[in-house]
Structure formats: C-alpha cells, structure tokens
C-alpha cells in the first residue's frame, strides 16, 4: 500500500499543508498544486494514484478539470465542496468524480473515504458477478438475491436498480445516472421512481427500512449502497 502518490489540488495554502502532513503521516507520497492548470500538469506527468480536488479553484472549474482528466485517466478523484452546494456535487459526480466530502471535514472521515476509494479502484476492471452487503448476497448472472440465505423476490426494475447500486461499491450514484441506466434516457426527471423503488428495496433487504444501514440516500445528490464484491456466493446448497 505504501509509496502511493496523492495529488492535492487546493488553492488554500494552509489546508494544502495540513492535507500533505496527514497523507505523509499515513505513508503516502504527496504532490500539491495550487491551481487547476498546475494540477492538470502534475496529474499528467506524475500519474498519481489518487487526487483530492477542491471545487472552489480560482482558475478552473472543477467540472472542467474532471472532464479533461477523464479523457485519459480513471484515477480516483475525491472532491471537496461546501454544504448546500449539492448541485455542484452532482455536476462533479456526473463529470467523473468518485466521491465528495463536505467542508469542513474531519481527518478520520477523509482517510476513510480515501481508503474506500483506493480499495474500490484496486478491484476495478474485474467487475464481480457477486456482491454482498450485510446479510444480502446479489448474484448478478443468476438474477437472484438472497437475504440471510433466503431467496428474495425482486421485480425486474428493482433488480436492475440494485445492480446499478451494488456495482458502484459504496460510491454515490447520482439520481440522473440511476434514472438513465434503469429506466432509460427519457426518465431523468422522474425522481419519484427512485424514491418508490428505493423504499421497496429497503423494505425487502434492510433490517430497519426507516434507518437503513446499506441502501442510503444522499439528499439532493443520489444514492449509494455500501456493498462489496464477494468471491464466493454465500448460498445454501440448492
């Protein structure tokens, strides 16, 4: 895990210094950039394993940065943004950001997000057939979902939605992305579909549907499912 390179693109020098110290202490190598343009140059020449991007850069819109970056790289990017700027977050996520963190954030929170992103990124490319969260196992090729060993009957839309969520392994998927993937491009503003089907999924898969532990909604942004790839499906012998 060591000798990984983190690129911090942040225009505030003191935050930049603190982030550098935090990452150095965790055993990462750190490069920093104060502007979006410098950040692009650094990202191109150093090939970092991870980018922390502030959305309030003076010279370049965070979305432009992400669009440029995503043309040649799938380096995980964590964006930092202010609370209340949900629209900005959605645009950044749609432009290719992997996750977001609201300012001001705590250090443990930051490190947790970073590790989750790296873990997900390491496993990328080998999209698993099986995913697991809590007592639920999702078998994508088999089109089945088991909860605590028992088969759960899902409608085809419920299953498609669940697949989109588990495949993102904890990453927020924006409402737009979900509606487009599950219902089709003509349904991007039918947000009530999502509300109703998320409620169905929670009812069938969560212990307490009112306080979900895995199928979470980020209001104004999208949804996430805290699922992981599973090597062996934990199924009872049929």
């Amino acid at each position: 895990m060591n000798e990984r390179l983190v690129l911090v693109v942040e225009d505030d020098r003191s935050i930049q210094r603190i982030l550098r110290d935090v990452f150095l202490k965790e055993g990462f190598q750190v490069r920093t950039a104060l502007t979006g343009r410098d950040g692009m140059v650094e990202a191109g020449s150093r090939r970092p394993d991870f980018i922390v991007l502030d959305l309030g850069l003076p010279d370049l819109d965070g979305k432009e940065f992400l669009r440029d970056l995503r043309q040649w790289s799938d380096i995980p990017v964590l964006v930092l943004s202010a609370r209340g700027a949900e629209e900005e977050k959605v645009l950044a996520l749609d432009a290719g950001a992997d996750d977001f963190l609201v300012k001001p954030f705590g250090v443990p929170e930051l490190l947790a997000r970073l590790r989750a992103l790296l873990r997900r990124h390491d496993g990328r490319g080998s999209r698993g057939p099986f995913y697991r969260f809590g007592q639920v196992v999702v078998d994508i090729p088999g089109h089945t979902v088991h909860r605590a060993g028992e088969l759960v009957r899902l409608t085809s839309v419920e299953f498609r939605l669940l697949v989109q969520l588990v495949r993102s392994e904890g990453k927020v998927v924006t409402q737009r992305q979900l509606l487009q993937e599950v219902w089709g491009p003509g349904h991007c503003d039918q947000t009530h579909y999502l509300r109703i089907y998320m409620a169905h999924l929670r009812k069938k898969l969560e212990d307490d549907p009112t306080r979900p532990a895995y199928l979470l909604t980020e209001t104004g942004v999208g949804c996430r499912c805290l699922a992981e790839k599973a090597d062996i499906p934990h199924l009872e012998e049929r």
Partner: protein
Amino acid sequence: MPPRRCRRNTFSPVDDRPWKSAGPWLQAIAICVAATGLSFLVEGIVGASHLSLLFLAAAVVASAFCGLGPGIMASVLAVLGLDFFFLPPHGSFHVSGSDFVSLILLLAIALSIGQLAERLRRQAESARRGQERAQATARMSRDLSGAFSVENVSAIALAGIGGTFGFEPRISLDPNLEAPRGWSSIPLRAPRKTRGTLLVPSENLVGDDREFLETLASLTGLAIERIHFVEVARDALLRMEGERLRSRILSTLSHDLRTPLTGILAGVESLGAELDVVDESVRGKIRMVATEVRRMADLVGNLLELSRLQSGGVVLRQDWNSVVELIDGALRQREALLNGREIRIDVSEEVPLVWCDGVLVERVLVNLLDNVARHTPGESPVHLWAEGGDGVVRIGLDDGGRGFPEEGSGSEGRSTGIGLSLCRSIAEVHRGRLETGATPGGGARAVLVLPQDRTPPELPEDPE
C-alpha cells in the same frame, strides 16, 4: 428638431367655412362689376348678343376661384347685369322670349361650371390634406421611434398633433380619463392595452378629423407601450444581474468563510493524532475545539442560507422526496451529536412523497435536531413522525425537554434564533409553515407543514 408648423388654412384659398370670410364674396362682386364695366367699353365693338360670353367668363372665373357660394352669386349677378344693362329694354329686367332662353342657358352653364370647379377644388383639397396627413403621420412615427421615455413620447405627440391641427391637445397616461367640458377624449390604443388618453378641444373636430386623430393616438400608444416593454426588459435584466451578483457574493463568502474552518478542523485533528496524546484532558480539549468548529461551520452555513432565502428570487430545486429518506439523512448528519439517545420514527407508508427542495427540508430537520441536542438532557428521547392529509404533509419532531423557550427570553432564546429563522424561511419558500408548541408530555414539538398540492405520476409496468 421642432416640428414644422403647417396650418392648413394657409394652404387653402377657400375655407371649408366660407361664410367666415367676406373676401371671396367681395372678389366675386368685383369680378361681376369688372365684367359689366368691360362690357360698356366693348359694347360698341361687339354685338350685345356677344356680351353674354363676357358675363359667362366672369361667372366661370368667380366660380373657379371664389368658391361655391360666391360662384353662384356671381352667376346670378352676371345674368342679372347682362339682362339689366345690355338686353333690351335697357335699364330693366324685362326680357324677350329668345333672350330669356339664352339667359337661362347662361345661368345653367355658369352654375354647372361652378359646381365642377367646386368639385375639383374639393378633390384637390382632400388629396392635399391626405398627403399632408400622411406626411404628418410619417413624421410623427419617425420622431416617436427615436423616443426614449414616456415624457419624450408625449412631447413629440403633442407637438406633432398640435402642429398638424393648429390647436393645443393634452395627453394623460390615465386610460379611463373623463374628458372635461368642451374636450373630446381619444384613447391611446396599443396592441396590449390602452396606454392613456388624448384630449382635444371638441369644437376643433370636423369631418374625418377624429379618425385621423385616432390614428395618431394609437401611434402614440404604440410608442408608450414600446417604452413600457423596454423598461420591463431592462428591469428583468437588472434583476437577473443582481441575482447573479448576489449568488456569486454568497458563494464566494461561503467558500472564504469555510476555508479557514476547514483548516482549523483538519489542523486540530491531525495535531491530536500527531501528538499521540495520552493526556485525556488535552484530547478532550482537542475534541471540544473540533466540535465547536463544526458548530461554527453550521452557523455560517445557516446564516448564508438564511440571507440567500431572504434576499428573494431563490430558485428551489424541487423534486419528489420521501419523508423517511429526509429524516434518515438528517439523522445521519447528526449521528455523533445524538449519540446514545433513543430515537423513534413513526412514518406510515401512507405518507405521500413530498414535492420540495429536499436539501432545504433536510436542513430544517437537521436544525431542529440541533435544537433538541442543545436544549435537552443527553439521554432524553427524540420522536420523529410524519402524517399526510388535508392537502398537507406534516413532519414533526418531539423531544422530552422543557419545551421551547419564550421569544427573547435571555441567552437561550437567542441561541435558537438563526436555526429556527432558517427553518421558518425554508417553510415559507415552500408555501408551508413551521409550527412550534408543546407535546402532551411537556416537551417541545416542532412541526414542518408542507403543502401537498400535486401527486406523483403513475409508475410504469414492472413485472416480477
């Protein structure tokens, strides 16, 4: 450029109202007298029978140049003069049978020519007036097209109309103005609505003047309407600019205020980690600083949001939201703060989806939770509930504390200020309200009431 004054009377040799001036009548008499005199002179040279041509000429000339009335008079005078002075018996109006016929013919010819001349003159006059009015209309519409204010428009219209008609009209922007005595009102009609009233002295209106004035009046109305819409467009542009500026200032402010807080929080936390502090009191202080910084950040966020909402022109990002998800989102944001409390949620499946700005409504719940955490003992339970019906959805939060502090009662009253103000503002922009009161058990109850005036569309078919 002052409008060219052109009183139509100066162009016309004969007024429409010839009795007003004695000139043409005298001219007609003079012509007849001259013809009589000339006849005496040439009587010896030409025969008396030929003198009738001279009198006919006089009658025609008078008819042609002096107008209809004087022309008729001249014709009669010419016939009488010829009869009296030159037809036998001289000095008497007696006339022989053949002369009588020629006299009648003479009169008939003179009168017919007079009629024809008059008709021609009228046609020429009306053509000239038509041209004059076309020119006046064109001139006024050209001048009005350059006008930049309503005052400007009415000045141009007054000068144009006054110049054409020779009287002083008045313009009022009141479309329903009652005309005072002796004045006629003509509406300034424009495509969208009547923009005002033109007042003209009634006595000056003759013939088709009214129609012409109505044309000029609508030209004026059109110009006023154009200026009105220019102003509307400019105001809209200014407002848009203002909103853009305001939102840029707020977002810059938000960034600038949060950046140092982010620095402090990350700094304090990494300090705690770096020192590997064993001293529990130091770690407690670091935790306290971190908590206070987060509170400060929330305060800043509430303040900015409040000023955004209160400055008006807020665009709500409304879509369908589930009350359960909003409650859960708020609880996750305040997980650490509510640590250890018993939290009960009662939201039945009958509660409908709510059409609202989910981020703002979640903020209301977060602020209410903050309030609970701050004003109730650490172990007191929290009860969140929702119910629908009667065109509203009610989302409530009950706690086991001592109820809401009285308005303005010391420090506690102040500390709830910003958070609750923001909650109220958010409720208002949704056309809803925030109700605060007490639970039956004596705790505080806050209820967010949101209007439920639309239902989500049907879902598509979904086979199992």
